[in-house]
């Protein structure tokens, strides 16, 4: 085995205090990156949570609708135009909209109501904890998620509240149906949604299209696009991408999270660079000796890069440990941090890249070493 790794390891571990400072610096900067990225992934997932859970082959959306939360309305006639096409089995209206929840204490909070269909073809709540899907057929029945019990001041089936001055009763509770906005999703019956949001009988927010067995969704989408006037036809993927683009890129929310990650990376890079530079300065005579006895630049760079990699791996392990704790701690909250295997791998690669780039300053310092200095000390 080459002595370069041994020399790098010993140089790094010789000053324990500096090593701890480096590892903590890298660790916390990567924890910040992990959390920001975890929030970003969580944000992206939550943006399309309703689209992902709707049993739709195609979506008919108001022309120019930017996301699932878009307040525009469709005309009911579009439904019949769609139904008239061979291959379309069913077209289910879906009414959604913003509303106000008044808790028994009188406190109000904005919510986003989803007019869940009673039939399987609609958009129904999932991950039920209490109650049954059929209970949403009862007038004034609602389903809420346990993440929002505090916000809605409600914690169990049977409790009452008001939505836009209409009395409702919690008959279902769910787990993990969270909104990326501050407004909880509340499932209600389609009729209640229409009444509470003031949606006229001939209007709807979306149509969920179901196709006959064996029909190609893209073909039907293209045909529907020529038939529908004030509507767009999108596959679930297309609608999901459009929603993500709007919320992630259009609102600046995604940019803010990415900027946070970038800042964390810069802080991490500076910490590692400073440490490696200072370590290199402390060992300058050793590097000069290496140069004097004929070492190539490559050998010296190898020593510094190995130091950087060791710092990266130790820092990453710390970050991963803390990151997993944060994931665990936020799992049941309204703002969960998600850490996927792919994301973990990315964080590891970014940590390594950051540390290696940080070595540049130290390498430049070493490359300027005059080996003659070994004679002057």
């Amino acid at each position: 085995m080459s002595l370069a790794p041994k020399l790098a390891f010993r140089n790094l571990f010789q000053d324990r205090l500096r090593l701890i400072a480096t590892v903590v610096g890298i660790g916390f900067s990567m924890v910040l990156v992990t959390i920001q990225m975890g929030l970003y992934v969580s944000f992206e997932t939550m943006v399309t949570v309703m689209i992902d859970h709707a049993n739709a082959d195609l979506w008919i959306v108001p022309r120019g609708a930017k996301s699932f939360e878009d307040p525009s309305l469709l005309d009911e006639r579009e439904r019949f135009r769609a139904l008239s096409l061979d291959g379309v089995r069913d077209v289910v209206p879906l009414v959604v909209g913003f509303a106000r929840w008044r808790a028994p204490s009188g406190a109000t909070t904005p919510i986003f109501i989803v007019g869940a269909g009673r039939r399987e073809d609609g958009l129904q709540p999932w991950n039920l904890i209490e109650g049954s899907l059929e209970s949403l057929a009862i007038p004034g029945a609602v389903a809420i998620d346990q993440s929002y019990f505090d916000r809605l001041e409600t914690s169990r089936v049977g409790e009452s509240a008001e939505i836009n001055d209409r009395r409702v009763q919690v008959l279902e509770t769910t787990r993990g149906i969270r909104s990326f906005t501050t407004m909880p999703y509340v499932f209600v019956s389609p009729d209640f949604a229409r009444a509470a949001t003031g949606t006229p009988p001939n209007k709807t927010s979306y149509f969920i299209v179901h196709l006959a067995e064996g029909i190609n969704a893209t073909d039907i989408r293209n045909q529907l696009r020529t038939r529908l006037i004030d509507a767009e036809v999108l596959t679930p993927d297309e609608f999901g991408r459009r929603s993500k683009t709007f919320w992630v890129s259009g609102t600046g929310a995604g940019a803010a999270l990415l900027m946070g990650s970038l800042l964390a990376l810069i802080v991490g890079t500076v910490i590692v660079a400073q440490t490696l530079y200072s370590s290199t300065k402390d060992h300058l005579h050793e590097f000069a000796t290496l140069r004097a006895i004929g070492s190539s630049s490559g050998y010296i760079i190898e020593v510094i890069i190995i130091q950087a990699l060791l710092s990266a791996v130790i820092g990453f392990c710390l970050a991963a440990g803390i990151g997993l704790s944060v994931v665990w701690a936020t799992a049941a909250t309204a703002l969960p941090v998600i850490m996927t295997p792919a994301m973990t791998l990315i964080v590891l690669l970014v940590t390594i890249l950051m540390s290696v780039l940080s070595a540049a300053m130290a390498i430049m310092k070493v490359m300027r070493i005059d080996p003659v200095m070994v004679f002057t000390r």
Partner: protein
Amino acid sequence: MTGPVLEAIDIGKFLGIGAGRFQALSAVNLAIAGGELTLLMGPSGSGKTTLLSILGCMLTPSSGTVRVHGQSTAGKKPEELAKLRRNHIGFVFQSYHLFPTLTAIDNVRIALDIRGESSEQSIKRAMEVLAIVGLANKTGSYPRELSGGEQQRVAIARAIVGDPSVILADEPTAALDAENGHAVMSVLAQIATNPARGVLVVTHDPRIVEFADRIVSIEDGIIISDSRAVVSEEMALQAQGSSSCRNKS
């Protein structure tokens, strides 16, 4: 190789810039042959270290040529000069310059490691040379666990482990007491008995002239004497003294 292992031909060197510019070496000619130990003596500021740096391919001369193992260093890039050093020159420094975090054997091995030699070979060879310098029982010791003389012998082992053509030693006994200095010089003299290897020792120390096959004196950047005759310690002391007096004046 039949010619000199290291040769300086008409070397001149200017140091400093602007008003501080001065000529550190002027028309220096020196050839180090294999199988002999040469002492380069002179007062502080005489140009010894500058000449050693040029001979060690660490400093480029302003004029003249250096030949290492028959190869001219003129026009060579830093990486090529580094290759020349690792293949043909061994260095011994006044402050030893051992790696404090490595054991004695690793400090020696590193000279082979930078050549890309396998660890099996390098360990074997390092053990051999540590035995040659009398440290076979100290292979696992760290520099802080060794005396000054032992550290210098580890440095000598590092210098010779790659079987270089020439050893350049800068004040190798300056930091040592008489006994350790004597031990270190004995090792260097022993190394110089190899006809394929020359040893050049830069020194102020008159106690070590007994080990020299040849003494070269330098003053103000000019070689003032180059003697192969056996020089007594007393003469060397006189030479050293007169240089110092001149320096002070």
